[in-house]
């Protein structure tokens, strides 16, 4: 049994005639100990999908119209509030984009980590355990650091504290929502290495959300590429990077600057992501697609398994 199984998840913002489909028919599985990357431009539904795993999108306005999210075989969408509170932090933990904003500015970090322990492991809510967690995430001199306020730490340290909080309850799945976007490059590498290392040691699964394809190759076992609320390509990471199938994935990979290859212009995807609620008919990528054909704008392509483990939402994926 997979740890997490999202099946045909459909989520609207709002209801009735004003409903805007933010997540459309997303299916995704994560096995125990697996790292899955969710890649896509801003506003394509990555974060909302990830937050849905623990029902953290406030409802209303969120409105789940279809599908299910099975966590250890149980549907999160049907859970009671108290069950959800057990899941949050207990089975699924989150690390967010801006570590500075994720920590409460008026409390010492030791107390914030302790709060996490109190919720899920009340018998272990001690200073010793907090220090052990800070050591685990590689914070030097944790004994003196527990008295620090968040603003006394650098961004990288703050993110380590956030990770320590997330790990306090030994979750099965760590959802990292662009954990390194707000950090500078060297710190990014350190944090990613830390996540990788912790994954090996603790055997948890990671759902890593990013718009940085550079991260994908280092971290991910599998990658899901999202566009306008849909998964357009789902594939093992190495194969996706070497041999992308969907034109959107190809365009994304092409827009990563390369050091080798001379001073060619950086290629960008023309146009913008369609606004939610204003999706084009048929394939949503068609208006920006270099290989679009007239029929692309007529019928929505299905997500099809074209090779073992490789799913693509484009009938013309073979077109070079």
């Amino acid at each position, binding site marked *: 049994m997979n740890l997490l199984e999202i099946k045909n998840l459909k989520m609207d913002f709002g209801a009735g005639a004003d409903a805007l489909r933010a997540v459309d028919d997303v299916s995704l599985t994560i096995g125990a100990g697996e790292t899955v990357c969710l890649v896509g431009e801003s506003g394509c539904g990555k974060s909302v999908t990830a937050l849905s795993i623990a029902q953290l999108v406030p409802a209303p306005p969120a409105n789940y119209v279809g599908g299910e999210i099975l966590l250890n075989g149980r549907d999160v969408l049907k859970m009671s509030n108290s069950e959800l509170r057990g899941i949050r*932090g*207990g089975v699924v933990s989150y690390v967010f984009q801006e570590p500075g904003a994720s920590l409460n500015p008026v409390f010492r970090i030791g107390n914030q980590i302790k709060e996490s322990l109190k919720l899920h492991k009340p018998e272990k809510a001690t200073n010793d355990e907090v220090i052990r967690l800070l050591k685990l995430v590689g914070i030097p001199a944790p004994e003196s650091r527990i008295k620090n306020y968040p603003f006394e730490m650098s961004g990288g340290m703050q993110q380590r504290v956030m990770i320590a909080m997330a790990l306090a309850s030994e979750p099965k799945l760590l959802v990292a929502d662009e954990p390194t976007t707000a950090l500078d490059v060297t710190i990014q590498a350190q944090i990613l290495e830390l996540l990788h290392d912790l994954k090996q040691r603790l055997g948890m699964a990671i759902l890593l959300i990013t718009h940085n394809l550079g991260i994908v190759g280092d971290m991910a076992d599998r990658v899901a590429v999202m566009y306008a609320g849909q998964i357009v390509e789902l594939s093992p990471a190495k194969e996706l990077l070497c041999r992308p199938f969907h034109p959107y994935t190809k365009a994304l990979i092409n827009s990563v600057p390369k050091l080798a290859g001379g001073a060619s212009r950086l290629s960008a995807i023309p146009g913008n992501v369609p606004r939610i609620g204003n999706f084009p008919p048929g394939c949503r990528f068609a208006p920006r697609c270099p290989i679009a054909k007239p029929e692309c704008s007529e019928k929505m392509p299905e997500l099809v398994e074209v090779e073992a483990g490789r799913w693509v939402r484009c009938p013309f994926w073979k077109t070079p």
Partner: protein
Amino acid sequence: MIETAPIQNPNAEQPLSPWQLFRRRLKRRRIAMAGGVILIGLYLVALFAGFIAPCNFERLDTNYSFHPPLWPKLSGFHLVVPRYEAGAGSFVYHAVAGDTKPLRFFIRGDKYKLFGFLPATVHLFGTGNDQYPVYLLGTDQFGRDVLSRLLYGSQISLSIGIIGILLSFSFGMMIGGISGYFGGRTDTVIMRLCELIMSIPALYLIISLRATFPPGMSSAQVYAMIIIILSFIGWAGMARVIRGMTLSLREQQFVLAARALGQTHLKVIVRHILPNTFSYVIVAATLSVPYYILGEVVLSFLGVGIQEPNASWGNMLTAAQNTEYLRNYPWLLAPGAAIFVTVLAFNFLGDGLRDAADTKS
């Protein structure tokens, strides 16, 4: 000689905590510090009122109605208190020449209870003889010592402010936090209720609320009633401001992070959102205490507050309503001066706290 490198204090590089910065900024504001010191003094005096007061607040001395303030004189190395006799005409007193008693300290006198429970008889000063009373601030129409009543009254008047603030602010913060956090219909209902309360003129609301309580109440009941009435009016303004702050705080990522840890809505409000409003709340509380003190004064002045013979600054001022009394016996205004000093001290301290809490300065 070996030169040693200067050893740096390891703490010197530690950035100051917000609290330390706040205290440092506050210390630079002299007027605020003066206000704070005055308030500490006033509250200490109120705490030890029974000990400092020369006699009980209920003690009548009908021979000495409207006695003017009397100050001990220096005779040799002693402070002495002369004996006074009622002269011709009403409420005119003369010192009897040569008939004095030395003023003594830590002297036994009326029974009282220190801090409300420790029985004691020792007073700070006195003559130990009822024939030689020490009326430092004169007496009222029943010959009761104004100073003693002022001290006992301060226990009521000063504590009403603090308890009232605690009650109305904790209620207002909770309601405001809930209103802002949940939003939607909850928010609309709560905010309209606040506006309803705020739109009624406070004085009418106070008096009509007073009418809902039965007339014959013990002084402890009246005390509680005043606090409840004033808090009932006071929470609405606080709730509105906290609601506004919560609206912006709830969008902060640490709220989502707390939710993602499995924290309940109520704990997110209490533990994560409200503490972020404290710097505002502390300032607002300090600036609002005078409102409660003055509220008690108004209620007692109107005769619906603390009842005689119990003393409060408000009901003592009731005696000073009469213009003839005011002209002839101005010392009856002493509680007015006490209110003035207290309110001013709270305002100075509050202003200083606000400036110190403002990190942009």
